């Protein structure tokens, strides 16, 4: 049944301190809402447990993208549209720009935010594998101060994170050290726009003298959290890409992932597709590495 708006509060402090003070005063009672593309879906379906919402859409610190010589810092409420339009993001972090382009349709890209995708903590979040391979770092903020955490340690289980009830994600920092890498992104879903992924992949790699110098692979929707394939990467690094290596990589992927059956797909299908996507990314890496 649809929610009754009279039963919900929405407060719009318009500044960071105001939002943090509210979160600190009544921890766990307030739910931040930015573009609303996740929160409002639950609300409309009558499934939103929180009755108190804080509007963080119009907080300037959360909406800026700052460029430094060694990194870029993306405010947590930057939209997918802002990411797609940003020159440095498009040029140096194409996996993130590509993921932004297949998250929802244009209307949802105009409202959906990178911080929201992280905080919502779905293992199917389209932008999350890219953040893993780009070594993203998060700055979390509360009235107690700021702390930094590597994104790879942010998710602790299905829909579980290290974010404290009084904290917001302030920004997402990406080191500018991957522009020379070859990159490959792929989403498999009922359709690219709107539909949530059955499996999605982000891959970065460098080829030197015909061998893999370094490869970074991450998958969405194959485990309780977005998953970096460390074991498969280790097995691949230093090797020459060929049919036997790809066959070994397929086996390693199947061992590393923990997919489940759900409304969108089955564990069996996801295993097959995850293995196919890694094989495809290695094949492309080999071809592009040879041409580079």
């Amino acid at each position, binding site marked *: 049944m649809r929610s009754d708006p*009279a039963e919900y509060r*929405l407060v719009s402090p318009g500044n960071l301190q105001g939002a943090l003070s509210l979160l600190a005063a009544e921890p766990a009672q307030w739910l931040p809402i930015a573009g609303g593309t996740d929160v409002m879906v639950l609300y*409309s379906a009558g499934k939103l447990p*929180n009755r108190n919402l804080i509007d963080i859409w119009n907080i300037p610190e959360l909406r800026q993208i700052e460029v430094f010589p060694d990194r870029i810092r993306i405010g947590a409420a930057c939209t997918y549209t802002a990411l797609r339009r940003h020159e440095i993001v498009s040029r140096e972090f194409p996996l993130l720009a590509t993921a932004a382009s297949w998250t*929802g*349709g244009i209307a949802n890209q105009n409202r959906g935010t990178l911080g929201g995708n992280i905080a919502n903590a779905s293992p199917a979040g389209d932008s999350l594998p890219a953040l893993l391979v780009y070594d993203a770092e998060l700055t979390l903020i509360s009235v107690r101060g700021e702390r930094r955490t590597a994104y790879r340690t942010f998710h602790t289980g299905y829909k579980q994170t290290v974010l404290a009830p009084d904290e917001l994600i302030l920004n997402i920092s990406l080191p500018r050290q991957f522009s020379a890498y070859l990159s490959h992104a792929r989403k498999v879903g009922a359709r690219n726009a709107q539909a949530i992924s059955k499996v999605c992949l982000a891959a970065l790699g460098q080829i030197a003298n015909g061998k893999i110098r370094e490869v970074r692979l991450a998958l969405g929707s194959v485990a309780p959290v977005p998953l970096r394939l460390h074991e498969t990467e280790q097995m691949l690094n230093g090797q020459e890409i060929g049919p036997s290596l790809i066959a070994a990589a397929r086996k390693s992927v199947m061992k590393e992932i923990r997919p489940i059956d759900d409304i969108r797909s089955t564990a069996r299908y996801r295993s097959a597709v995850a293995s196919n996507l890694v094989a495809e990314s290695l094949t492309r890496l080999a071809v592009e590495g040879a041409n580079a």
Partner: protein
Amino acid sequence: MSPLPVASAKYELSFTVNGGTKKLLAHPMERLLDVLRNDLGLTGVKEGCGEGECGSCSVLLDGMLVNSCLIPVAQANTASIVTIEGMAAHALMKPLQESFLECGGAQCGICTPGMILAAVHLLEKNPEPALTDIREGLAGNLCRCTGYMQIFEAVAKAARRRAAQ
């Protein structure tokens, strides 16, 4: 965590809708879609899925295409909103209406306001879109009648017609 028993009072909001200033009382979590339809009588804004999947409730909010079912009305306070009713005088409207008619781009009509607004949002930024651009620009708008090809064709034709003017 048990939610606090809370209630919100209606409060006064003010925004621009289709060029005119509107003041009204609303609960902050009322959906912009419901306020536009029920309080302001703008029934060109359609409700399809109510969960941001279908694009029937598309409006322009400060020039950005959004799904009004996903916007708490408090987030539209002081904003400028354009619905299909406000598009009549837009320079793209005549070419779009003509091409939708000629190509069979509208059947039952529920998706049409959203399709038109998504097309305007696209063509304002990209006056000569390729088919892939049109497909992407309208990917958030579902149509259960046409099969889409007539709509893509209509948008391409409107763009050509606009360029020829």
